[in-house]
């Protein structure tokens, strides 16, 4: 019986993700790009809601990975594959994995894994909705002009920007990372005899 439930759940989830994509595909004259954006955006929102609403913290982490992955997909469909690759390497390959790693090392699987911060679910939801509305109002109410042209940039331009206009930022990031590493090592280091 459970197997059937899983199948039904999977079908519903698939339908939720694909329906906007199909609608966009049909309405906007068969551009798979637009459909892809719609599908990925839906997936991202669904995964994001799953992250904050599920009880099992490991599943939350995995949903977060799905969220990051669909964001990477959005970057690709917006013409920034470099950013997408960085997103996958950094946020999925490193950060999420380390988060999962830490949770798995510390958490008891048995017993309730209910997150304590879910007690403030309602205010958080309201805040999230307000910010979403604000951002979308701001984004749609502004004529972005030439800025939107800048977005499709190849790796070469990223390199030029990094090593010419923003070389100081790059160097400063180096110093920042050095400071962070030293601080992190100090905090994580076990005292002798402790």
């Amino acid at each position: 019986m459970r197997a059937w439930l899983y199948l039904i759940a999977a079908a519903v989830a698939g339908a939720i993700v694909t329906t906007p994509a199909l609608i966009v595909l049909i309405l906007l004259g068969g551009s798979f790009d637009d459909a892809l954006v719609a599908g990925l955006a839906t997936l991202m929102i669904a995964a994001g809601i799953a992250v904050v609403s599920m009880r099992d913290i490991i599943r939350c982490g995995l949903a977060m990975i799905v969220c990051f992955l669909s964001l990477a997909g959005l970057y690709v469909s917006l013409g920034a594959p470099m950013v997408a690759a960085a997103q996958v390497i950094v946020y999925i390959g490193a950060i999420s994995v380390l988060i999962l790693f830490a949770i798995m090392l510390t958490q008891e699987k048995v017993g309730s894994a209910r997150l304590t911060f879910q007690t403030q679910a309602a205010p958080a939801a309201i805040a999230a909705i307000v910010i979403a509305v604000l951002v979308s109002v701001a984004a749609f109410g502004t004529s972005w002009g030439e800025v939107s042209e800048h977005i499709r940039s190849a790796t070469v331009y990223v390199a030029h920007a990094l090593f010419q206009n923003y070389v100081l930022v790059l160097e400063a990031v180096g110093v920042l990372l050095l400071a962070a590493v030293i601080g992190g090592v100090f905090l994580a280091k076990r005292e002798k005899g402790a």
Partner: protein
Amino acid sequence: MPNDILALGPFIAAVSVAIAVLLVDIAVPGRRGPVLVVSLGGLALVAALTLTTGQAVAGGDGTLRVLAFGGAYVVDGLTTFLDLIFVGIVAFTIVFAPDYLEARGLPLAEFAMVLLFAMTGAMLISGAGDLLVLFVALELMVLPGYMLAGYHKSDGYSTEGAIKYFLLGSFSSAIFLFGLAFTWGATGTTSIEGVSGALAAAVAGGGALAPALVLGLGFLTTGVAFKIAAVPFHYWTPDAYQGSPTPVTGYLSVGPKVGAFALILRLFVDALGPLRVDWLQVVIILAVFTMTLGNLVALTQSNVKRMLAYSSIAHTGYMLVGLAAFAAGRIEGLEGLLYYGAAYSVMNLGAFAVVAAIQRRAGVTSGLDTFAGLGRREPWLAILMTLFLLSLTGIPPTAGFFAKAYVILAAVQAGNAGYTAVGILAVIAVINAAAAAFYYLRVVVYMFMREPRSEDAAMAHGRLMWGGLVVASVLTVVLGLIPGPFLDIVGRAARAIGG
């Protein structure tokens, strides 16, 4: 390119000093002498280099503005002035720290090194000519702060404070970055000059601001308000300050705060200057709440560190008054803000140094009781503490009085010039300054008019600690008595961006 490197000289020197401390600690681990020599000597070097760079690159009067790295770094009078303040803050912190740290078995080398890294971040903020530099520099400045707050690893309060500081700090950084992204989107450039130009054009063109810009401004204000701990974004302050080791608290109440004000100068005054009228209201409201709430809550505190934490919130409010006066068209407001920053740094660091000195022995709390009878036990320490507290209150002839007077005067002038709200702000600031006397003087009362709680013997303090305290107290008095020469420098710095 060589000129670019030259302009960046102080920053590079500061990074080198930090790395030198690291290497020294690797070569002779656990010794405080070499670390102190290298870090303090290095700081002197950085200060000298800052001065000569300011002279050589930016010209004698400092109003000349030199761009390096394609405009990403700026050297002008403000850069030099702020850099010197940061060097001073870090030097004082390093001088005051060793006794306290040693008593608790905490290493000095990592402390000094991380502080120096924080200083490089602050120096980069003061010379930022690009929004991205501004953000990375901000992170570079606050990240070591998180680690310093949790420096006492075996102490639960320290860890708690560090985690609160870290979570809210990174949260506010994210908000700040979001705001930067919107600003970039609305103006199409990340360079501060470019943003300023684009906004000036937009304002001149008339009509309402783009919604994205408004939202970006809101996010930026929120992020910065977190960093300077303005009410209602101050919740992290008391716990982070009380939990941290006392020298760290002294640094946290001064370094990141002045750094964040440097950020405000570069971002709001410089880049968002054309929108002055729009953010003036926000600054006024923030200033009112920050002063009033900070003082009211400080009145009820029985822990001196926590009391100083809330009082530092109140001081943020006074500095915001200066900012408001500047936004209302008075350059004196900016001068007052800069002067206030310097004076506040000295007196607050001094006060915290006394607290740290009293906590020389591990396990001594910073409660008000600890100060009972200090005047009998350690008269010199008590006298110095009184001086710093009087200065924090704003009693003449100390630096604190002059700073408050300057800021409030500027606000009054702005009020006379038609900005009634700013004038009212000045009144509120005066009332607040009077209220603050209650809790500052209560400590003095405890020190001189209460019997010692226990039979604690007087503790020996290192020469370094005494030296630092003497310098701080002399500065506190001198800045208040003969502010003239110093005001010249402040004026130059203020004219560099506000002129």
